[in-house]
């Protein structure tokens, strides 16, 4: 019972986190939150907090402020200790060689890239990019808001990228801009991405009347965008964006590499990217994030601020996307479904599916999925661009 005597607040937080882990597994299983992430994350969270609850002091029980757990130590810096920990904590190699250098975000991005059909963007580039830019409003609003409530500039910028609703991007940005609090930022980001499933339909009902939600989009003829065109677009975009934002070049390379492999018809690589790499990286992402949710790590006073900023960013981004949709609705003489704007929030393909589902509820014959996927994929590109701009403007923290 030494844990309760020495640090009662930490002990209570551990019990809460064990319960929260179970709740996440349940919500993942029910489909309210993303099961691929929440099941390993929830079990990891419960296991680590149970594991350190009654550990004898001889086993170097983590203290408040000490980031270590039984499974890994995320902020160890001394070389000798690191070598020792690498041999003792079984998840330490995964963390050191994939998390702390951003590789896991890049691996997820390669997988996502291999699933993206840029043909949806290429059919209507101006509309798609316009909506995606509108759906970045949350990031732009929350960045100064974070500074206003007392966060350091890097932390505020990293937290604001939650508005882009792109998990790997938030992970990458927080590693670059606020490595000391990247764990709570990333955990908050991944928890709140579930809001796009649960919360956005209510936001749609609040902002878009039923008769507008059901506006059908014209059925388009089969695309004349060839794989060759997609490859040329991919190569040019990748080179240009790497040229403009060298600091985010690993992310651009990863996502466009995935797209290129898909369009080049390299089936073996495509299978590798879209199955093994994507699911392997997602599994370890969820598990390690869960392990990092040890009470001593997560009980940081800024976590509450991050919770508020995260939900604010996602909500404002969705509102921005819908407002963009309304601009096109009036521009096209009320013949454009504004729900497509919501899909500019780059949570692929969730936001596109949510937009389509809401439209179909109002009008079963309404099909807006192709247009929604266009703005959804544009959202991935604009989120990467905005993250790169913020990192360039605020300046990466040197490790």
């Amino acid at each position, binding site marked *: 019972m030494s844990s309760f005597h020495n640090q009662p607040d930490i002990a209570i937080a551990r019990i809460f986190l064990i319960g929260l882990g179970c709740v996440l597994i349940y919500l993942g299983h*029910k489909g309210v939150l993303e099961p691929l992430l929440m099941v390993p994350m929830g079990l990891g969270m419960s296991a680590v907090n149970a594991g350190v609850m009654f550990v004898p002091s001889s086993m170097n029980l983590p203290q408040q402020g000490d980031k270590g757990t039984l499974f890994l130590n995320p902020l160890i810096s001394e070389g000798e200790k690191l070598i020792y920990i690498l041999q003792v904590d079984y998840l330490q190699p995964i963390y050191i060689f994939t998390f702390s250098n951003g590789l896991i975000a890049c691996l997820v991005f390669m997988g996502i890239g291999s699933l993206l059909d840029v043909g949806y963007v*290429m059919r209507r*580039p101006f509309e798609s990019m316009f909506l995606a830019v509108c759906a970045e409003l949350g990031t732009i609003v929350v960045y*100064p808001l974070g500074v206003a409530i007392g966060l350091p500039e890097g932390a505020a910028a990293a937290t604001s990228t939650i508005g882009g609703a792109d998990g790997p991007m938030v992970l990458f940005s927080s590693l670059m801009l606020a490595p000391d609090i990247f764990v709570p930022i990333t955990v908050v980001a991944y928890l709140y991405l579930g809001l796009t499933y649960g919360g956005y339909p209510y936001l749609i009902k609040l902002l878009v009347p039923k008769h507008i939600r059901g506006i059908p989009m014209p059925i388009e003829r089969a695309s*004349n965008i060839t794989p060759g065109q997609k490859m040329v*677009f991919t190569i040019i975009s990748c080179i*240009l*964006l790497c040229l403009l934002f060298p600091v985010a070049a690993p992310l651009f390379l990863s996502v466009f590499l995935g797209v290129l492999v898909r369009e080049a018809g390299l089936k073996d690589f495509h299978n590798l990217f879209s199955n093994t790499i994507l699911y392997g990286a997602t599994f370890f992402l969820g598990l390690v994030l869960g392990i990092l949710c040890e009470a001593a790590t997560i009980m940081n006073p800024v976590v509450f601020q991050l919770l508020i900023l995260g939900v604010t960013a996602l909500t404002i981004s969705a509102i921005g996307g819908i407002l963009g949709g309304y601009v096109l609705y009036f521009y096209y003489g009320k013949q454009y479904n504004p729900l497509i704007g919501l899909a500019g929030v780059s949570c692929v393909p969730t936001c596109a599916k949510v937009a389509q589902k809401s439209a179909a509820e109002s009008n079963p014959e309404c099909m807006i999925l192709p247009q929604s996927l266009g703005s959804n994929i544009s959202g991935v*590109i604009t989120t990467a661009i905005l993250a790169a*701009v913020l990192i360039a403007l605020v300046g990466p923290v040197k490790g």
Partner: protein
Amino acid sequence: MLQQVIMKSLYAYFLLAVISLFVAVVIKVIVVFFNRAAEKNVPRDIETSPAGPYSLPTMTYGVPAHHVAAIVAAVHYVTSGRIVRIDGGDDHNWTSIGRSQHLSSHDTRR
């Protein structure tokens, strides 16, 4: 300090808008350029010659020849250069599989 951050934030948004516009223009240029190149490669005058005497088989692997011709014409109209495998089926199970895949693909709770 806060004012500076607000200005920085607006500047970031401005940069995002400009670069996104640039990307959109690049996409448009690529699509237009390739489409024009493709149009140029289409032969203007196709020399036609009368078809020689030829008789279609009445059945191919159990599929009537006129069905094969209709499917090939439809596939060619939608997308040329594809190889399509046409198989005779005993029942209509394939339609139910297609329908279930299509309907469940938009299920956000999957």
